[in-house]
């Protein structure tokens, strides 16, 4: 047993897991509000990270201006995707809509490689990178920053859904579109808002990952890890998505520990979440908090 290594990995897992949770949360937000399974979630992260990188590194904008600019851009970007691409698809079969998001992810992925190149780019120093000694553990400040930002976003999201008027409108739309519409909620603007918020939140997560690891197209992998997390938590549960993300993050790192200490298979870190996904589908298909569908005829 290598306890220090294990604890280090668990801390890693918690930090990465909360980020997965944030991305999964924004994925579930779109799914709940608009019934679209978004395969371009990871690319939203990537767009946010690259835009912020371009502002900071290329145009030398200070971080406290560059970050809000990124967020505003992503907000508009999210609305633009919804209005231009997904609104015309309303009423089409659901599988067509999914395939549109798959097409979108291809386009974004390739376009970003085209514009920014394939090489990973280091992110400009935002914080003085230091290690903090916490209960005998060396923890980098960026990790703590990442954890704080993620938790803040989760709390913000919870507040938004529980207390704000728009959050209430969004929950009503998710519950029943027709009833919501008849009560005077503009379903159109709720759809656009869901995409805007999801894109913005994803961008924050993208920038956080970029600050820690640099910007590269590998960031889009976070969009893929969303699926195990969201399935584990239940496809339509925001809280479940957060918990699922944290569990997947921890599990990845535990898999890495087991792999490096005992099994020596290599690459178990990458692939473990997908085994979990299949197992969850077999034994508890609606996840931890998902709603079972009971249909009336």
């Amino acid at each position, binding site marked *: 047993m290598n306890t220090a290594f294990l604890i280090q990995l668990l801390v890693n897992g918690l930090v990465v897991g909360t980020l997965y949770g944030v991305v999964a949360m924004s994925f579930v937000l779109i799914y709940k509000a608009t019934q679209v*399974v978004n*395969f371009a979630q990871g690319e939203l992260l990537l767009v946010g990270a690259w835009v912020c990188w371009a502002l900071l590194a290329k145009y030398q904008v200070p971080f406290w201006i560059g970050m809000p600019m990124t967020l505003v851009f992503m907000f508009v970007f999210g609305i633009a995707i919804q209005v231009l*691409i997904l609104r*015309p*698809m309303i009423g*089409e*079969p*659901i*599988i*067509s809509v*999914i*395939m*549109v998001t*798959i*097409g*979108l*992810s*291809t*386009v974004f*992925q*390739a*376009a970003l*490689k*085209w514009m920014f190149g394939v090489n990973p780019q280091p992110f400009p120093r935002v914080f003085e990178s230091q290690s903090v000694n916490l209960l005998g553990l060396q923890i980098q400040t960026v990790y703590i920053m990442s954890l704080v930002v993620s938790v803040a976003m989760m709390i913000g999201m919870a507040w938004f859904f529980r207390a704000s008027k728009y959050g209430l409108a969004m929950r009503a739309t998710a519950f029943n579109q027709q009833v919501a519409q008849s009560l005077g909620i503009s379903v159109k603007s709720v759809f656009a808002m869901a995409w805007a918020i999801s894109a913005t939140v994803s961008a924050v997560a993208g920038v956080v990952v970029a600050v820690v690891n640099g910007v590269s197209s590998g960031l889009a992998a976070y969009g*893929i890890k969303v*699926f*195990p997390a969201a*399935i584990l938590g239940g496809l339509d549960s925001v809280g479940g998505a957060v918990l699922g993300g944290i569990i997947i993050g921890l599990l990845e790192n535990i898999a890495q520990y087991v792999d490096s200490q005992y099994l020596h*298979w*290599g*690459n178990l870190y*990458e*692939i473990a979440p*997908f*085994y979990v*996904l*299949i197992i969850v*589908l*077999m034994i508890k*298909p609606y996840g931890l908090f998902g709603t079972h*569908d009971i*249909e009336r*005829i």
Partner: protein
Amino acid sequence: MAGPALIPAGDFRTTYAADTTIFPTKTSRNFAIAGVLLLCLAPQFFGGYWLSILIQIGIFSIAALGLNILVGFTGQISIGHAAFFLLGAFTSAYISNNAPIPVFFAIPLAGIVTALVGLVFGIPAARLKGLYLVIATLAAQYILLDFFSRAEWFSGGSVPASAEPFSIFGYTLRGDKQYFYVVLAYVLASYILVTNLMRTRDGRALVAIRDHYLSAEIMGINLTKYRTLSFALAAFFAGIAGALYAHYQQVVSQEGFGIERSILFLAMIIIGGTGSIMGTLMGTAFVVLLPESMEWLSLHLKGGAIDHALSLNTNITFLREIAIGLIIIAFLMFEPDGLAHRWRQIKAYWKLYPFSH
């Protein structure tokens, strides 16, 4: 999804047999036979390059046909098709290398093995309604590719596996010209098989599930059974196509069979027309020819203003991916029935020419 068939006025069908016929008229049947005969002559006229493109179209169209059973006829999505394609390729190479089984039998065996592996991933998802299959196949894509890079006994790990050339009853086929006929035979067999499948009860059950799964279930169709069946069929054709590809290339490596390739398979059927068997062939041809035509275009634009603005040569791969993505989106938004629908409209236009309105 498939639009209404454009049947000329006065063509009344009074029996079920007439309604399910493959060729509505004698002329259409004769045209189909003539088309196949013309294709048989293709190796005489085409050089090595175009012949290899034709073979690729043939192989990929079999895989795309499998995917179309799943997406177009059953209304489920798979984004792990490339992994099943690759599994078929490795399996066929492994069988023909390690067992005294000729390649001729190894190919269908590879299809069966792929279908069985597909079931492992498909069964948990097929029990559920909605979009769980697409997520399960996403997992399949990653798990299978990870398996291939790990299992050196099976796929050679990081070293590409070698596959024997196609042989039948001790006679070995060599070169593209001979292999073309093998692919043609397989393409014909699978297309006839699927066309006929769609005329049977099982095929109509799949379409019923796509159109309204609740009504289908009430009418006595076992949803789980048919969803699983269609997924197994999709994997089977992917396996067959992969095996053909393995013995064509005679080397199998997992390079280029990531999730992008799965999306490419989806693009083939979206462009061709989901739920259209002939459309699958058109869509595959479109997707295979697109990179070729883009390369040709970039070669001709070389040195021009557009070349300078986009620096085409270095970025051609990205531009190709962007084009594929945009074409997928454009077809879904503006022509959801794909090229097959366009083709029907062109035919209708000329049928009624010059009074086409």
